[in-house]
């Protein structure tokens, strides 16, 4: 059991403990949840500390057999790509717990338990190196989020929760089919071995197979991202979710989709990924512009931020499918950035909601007069979100766009429109909420930030500046991981066409013999 | 066994196919009766008819194969049918007690 196992296990332990506590002990449950999540965060910092830069492949590996047949492993590990996403999850969970401190009264026990379960699932998703294990965590995440939205959400919460669940489910069942198919072909769920088999040509996929598998995985991830036009669950889910739910959803859960694209779609199906890149990029760009334009006219703050997420995540997808080092680095960095800045936006919108009990932009106005610090924090977050240099999003967007420019300059032209639009919708909202005359309701019900709220906001703002100013703290390990992924996504493009030439390139000592349909098929003889 | 099939004739010289056809006709009659009769008792009797049609097949085949097992099957089936009849009639009785009808079309409160 190494540190990573501990980071995954601790939230699960917290979940169980929280469930075992009597529901009357509300405060104790909250303290427990906060304590566990903070401890997890501190432990996860150990991962950063112990992470060896310059070493390709995953670290902090644990690889034990979970289920003997079919062989499913508890194979977890992190590389530069997952490291920061794990940290992002552990970083935001305490914040999500802290910000719900006062907002959640009803069934607090379940709430905090679910948040911990969510953290467990999220960390697991990013750490899993076994396709099956990955799928398990992927689905585990769904359950707590469903309840968070459905129980503690707003008026149309049920519709939103069910929609969220079904949308995701519809995508992920196809991914399951894809995972099984790959297993049957390669004979293992272990991702390292799968990649080795694919890149060495030992697991031959026909062109059609590869394309279909790619699409199966892609669909699951694209729904989660969400990529236009699969995004309509997102605004509903966000608007109806409680603040903590929105924060976790936007900050971390959406990254599951983009992470999956980078981690699985690119290296496993290099040819299909490249062949299909053009329409995917087109959808991403449509998403960037479309999400921005729709955000522009939203009368509801959360919905606005939700659509802005559609736009921002479009950048990430664009970066991924630019197949350039800087584009991919930028995409990963943008995942983190979006996690921080949009998380902060949802958090602050949540603070406003707690005060005024409304999310309608029209119900606000002049907040800057009565709550200057809240306004300033919101402004900083807004600026981060629209990509002001020195704040985090800029770095990511710049790199993504640079990457896309290297791939195809016309993509960049259209995608950059998103940068203009983002300024429009964010600033327009900011103006209507914070500037102008203070109305009576706002005057009496909107105090400035409390100490607890400061504690939630400050870490996020610090991260915005840090990530905006000194990306070198984060990027080098990401670059290393991405370089490897890019390498894998190139590897067997030529190999695929002509099988005989393969042997020249493939390393001679492959531990696993080629798996043929006959061997995997079991009982052809019996028929 | 195919040669056996061709060479075997029952004592009376009736080919096996006749029995089989009769069996099939009886079975079909049973099915038709189930589908088209309205009294529950009649419908139940139709099931008995179907079972007995099968019995006929068993006996015919047993004879053809010169085996005793087919005959034994018939007895098994008859026993089972008897048990079924006992239970079935009891069920029909309670239905009649509760609804005072034996029209099969009126027993349709559970649907959709």
């Amino acid at each position, binding site marked *: 059991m190494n540190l990573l196992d501990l980071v995954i296990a601790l939230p699960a332990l917290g979940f169980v403990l929280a469930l075992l506590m009597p529901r009357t002990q509300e405060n104790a449950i909250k303290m427990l949840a906060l304590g566990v999540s903070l401890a997890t965060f501190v432990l996860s910092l150990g991962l950063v500390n112990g992470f060896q830069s310059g070493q390709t492949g995953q670290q902090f590996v644990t690889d034990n057999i979970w289920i003997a047949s079919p062989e499913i492993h508890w194979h977890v590990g992190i590389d530069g790509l997952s490291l920061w996403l794990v940290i992002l999850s552990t970083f935001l969970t305490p914040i999500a717990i802290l910000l719900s401190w006062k907002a959640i009264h009803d069934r607090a026990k379940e709430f905090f338990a679910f948040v911990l379960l969510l953290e467990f699932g999220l960390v697991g998703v990013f750490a899993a190196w076994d396709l099956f294990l990955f799928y398990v965590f992927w689905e585990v995440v769904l359950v707590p989020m469903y309840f968070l939205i459905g129980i503690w959400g707003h008026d149309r919460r049920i519709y939103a929760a069910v*929609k969220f669940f079904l*949308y995701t489910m519809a995508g992920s069942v196809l991914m399951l089919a894809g995972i099984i198919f790959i297993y049957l072909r390669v004979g293992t769920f272990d991702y390292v071995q799968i990649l080795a088999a694919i890149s060495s040509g030992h697991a031959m996929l026909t062109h059609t197979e590869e394309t279909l598998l790619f699409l199966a995985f892609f669909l699951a991830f694209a729904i989660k991202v969400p990529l236009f*036009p699969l*995004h*309509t*669950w997102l605004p509903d889910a966000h608007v109806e979710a409680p603040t903590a739910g929105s924060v976790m959803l936007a900050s971390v859960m959406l990254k599951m989709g983009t992470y999956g694209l980078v981690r699985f779609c690119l290296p496993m199906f290099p040819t299909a990924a490249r062949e299909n890149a053009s329409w995917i990029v087109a959808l991403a760009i449509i998403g960037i512009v*479309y999400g921005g*334009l*729709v955000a*522009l*006219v939203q009368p509801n703050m959360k919905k606005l931020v939700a659509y802005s997420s559609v736009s921002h995540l479009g950048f990430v997808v664009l970066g991924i499918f630019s197949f*350039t*080092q*800087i584009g991919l*680095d*930028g995409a990963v960095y943008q995942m983190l950035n979006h996690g921080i800045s949009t998380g902060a936006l949802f958090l602050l919108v949540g603070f406003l909601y707690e005060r005024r009990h409304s999310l309608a932009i029209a119900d606000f106005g002049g907040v*800057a*007069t009565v709550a200057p610090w809240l306004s300033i924090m919101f402004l900083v977050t807004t*600026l981060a979100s629209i990509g*002001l*240099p*020195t704040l985090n999003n800029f770095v990511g967007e*710049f*790199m993504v*766009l*640079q990457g896309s*420019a*290297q791939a195809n*300059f016309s993509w*960049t032209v259209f995608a950059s*429109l998103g*940068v*203009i639009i983002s*300024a*429009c919708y964010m*600033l327009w909202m900011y*103006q209507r909420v*914070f*500037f*102008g005359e203070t109305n009576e309701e706002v005057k009496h019900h909107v105090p400035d930030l409390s100490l607890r709220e400061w504690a939630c906001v400050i870490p996020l703002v610090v991260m915005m500046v840090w990530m905006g*100013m000194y*990306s*070198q703290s984060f*990027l080098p390990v990401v*670059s290393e991981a991405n*370089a490897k992924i890019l390498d894998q996504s190139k590897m067997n493009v030529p190999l695929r066409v002509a099988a005989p030439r393969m042997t020249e390139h493939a390393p001679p000592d492959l531990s696993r013999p080629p798996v043929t349909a006959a061997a995997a098929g079991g009982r052809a003889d019996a028929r | 066994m195919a040669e056996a099939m061709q060479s075997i004739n029952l004592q009376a010289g009736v080919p096996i196919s006749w029995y089989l056809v009769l069996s099939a006709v009886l079975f079909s009659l049973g*099915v038709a009766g*189930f*589908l*088209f009769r*309205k009294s529950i008792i009649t*419908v139940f009797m139709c099931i008995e008819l179907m079972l007995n049609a099968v019995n006929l097949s068993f006996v015919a085949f047993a004879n053809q194969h010169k085996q005793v097992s087919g005959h034994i099957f018939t007895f098994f089936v008859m026993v089972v049918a008897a048990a079924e009849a006992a239970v079935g009639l009891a069920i029909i009785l309670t239905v009649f007690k509760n609804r005072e009808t034996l029209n*099969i*079309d009126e*027993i*349709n*409160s*559970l*649907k*959709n």
Partner: protein
Amino acid sequence: MQNLWLIPALPFLGFLINGILGKKLPKMVINAVAVGSVVLSFLLVLNIWSSGGDLAANPIHQHYFTWIQSGEINIGWDYAVDKLTLIMLMVVTGIGSLIHVYATGYMAHEEGYYRFFAYLNLFMFFMLNLVLGGNYLLLFVGWEGVGLCSYLLIGFYFVKKSASTAGNKAFIVNRIGDFGFSLAMFLIVVNFGTLDFTKVFAAAPGKSTETLTAIALLLLLGATGKSAQIPLYVWLPDAMEGPTPVSALIHAATMVTAGVYMCTRSAVIFTHAPIAMDTVAIVGLATAVFAATIGLTQYDIKKVFAYSTVSQLGYMFLGVGVGAFSAGVWHLVTHAFFKALLFLGAGSVIHACHHEQDMRHMGGLRKYTPVTMAVLACASLAIAGVPGTSGFFSKDAILTAAYGHAPWMFWVGVVTAGMTAFYVWRAFWMTFWGEYRGHGHPHESPWSMLAPLVVLAFLSIAGGFLFNVPKILEGMFPAAEEVPGESMLMGISIAAGLAGIAISYYMYVVNPKLPQRISDGLGGIYRLVYDKYRIDELYDATVVNPVITGSRSLLWKVMDQGVIDGAVNGVGSEAQLAGGWLKMLQSGNIRSYATWVVLGAVCLLILIGVAEGVTR
């Protein structure tokens, strides 16, 4: 060796102190922090200036840390100083210091005093970053940052809707420009693999003209946003919603000239892209004329100067476009002096008239505010290009170069110069001559405000001698071609300026009824110009409203909620319908169930027959 990072860091420190603690600090401390930090920066700049060294041969270049690094692309946080930067630094910190001092007086009674100075210091930080940046991306940092501060300061009176709207407009219009700028950067990286000025400029001459033209035109788009050129000038007049020192510092002297600086900085790229150069010149010239005509008709004193700024910036672009980079920068410097002075003077006037900005409610102020009048007279002389004043030198240099490039440009420039002299002096006469037409008693401003004015007045007059920019920058840019008959051209432009002054004197002092008659006579045309050619309305009608209503009704309601979500929910309700239909099979009738069983059996029999038949 200088620590360049200290120059922007000091104002940033000021921003942090005032921004975080300002609410609890006494005004004295706020002043000391705000003004002190900028003055210290100015002293540091002076130190570089005086310690000199041969910047032309050995520009200072300092690398602090790697900012963005991915693959081959490495962008550092680098500061660099050459002579061009040094001039910009002098202007920014020098004028910045003066304006900070002025603002302590002007803003003395405002709420959010500390906030104002925090923003102002933040602006200084970003502006210094802009000019110090050793690569395009760092320039862009400053570029966006000053845009932010501009946004904040325009919307300083955020309770007023017009102020916050103007702030938004400034930011968003600038974003459109930045769109071009960033695309240009992407192209540069794609083609050069770096954003460092030195490397890019060293490699630029070897690149194809098409590439360089594309880059240059995109950079120009960026510059038109920041420097308020056609077609993106619309934000600047609205930006006058901000407090007057802001107008002086940001929207006259420093930030808006960033576009000129950027084009000048990229001179190597531009000079290798002739089409782009012509475009720059034409955009500049068109803007100069266009804005000047609007300036003729405005009554809001700050609006007049705002359009004047747009127009003067057009001059600078004209200079850049015709290849007279150093002339453009020269005008940048002198314009900083006199336009800052004009705005600050206007501020003093506004202050005197209890925040009245409409010139029709001023008049006769020479009795009440003699110092203000005197300094404004200096500025007006300078902008009119009266010989000997700073404006004369720089404007003349540009016009001469324009003649060398294309004579028609010179003539248009001259007409514009005449109009400029006219409207500035029109404002002067309307403000200081005649009878006081406002309410209350006007009063002279405190010395904290007047002292900077006096300094600026001196610079407006003598700046041309003190800072001979072409001489300083000698060798940095390809020399402009020699123009024959230079003295004659000079005469013509001087005459135009003087004529403007004279006509305005006639119309607004000698015969004050005349302007009304002329405007009545011109009718529709006058109204059109007075309404600023209704460009804002045009943009609203062609861009803003279609985008908003299109997004709302088409994209959101029809596409998102109708088509996409409709499809999603449609699948749901279709499934429910199918379920409803399926459950109708379940009639509850035993005989019908038996029929299903029989039918199923028959189907199976057929199927198995077929399947077996096939596999046989």
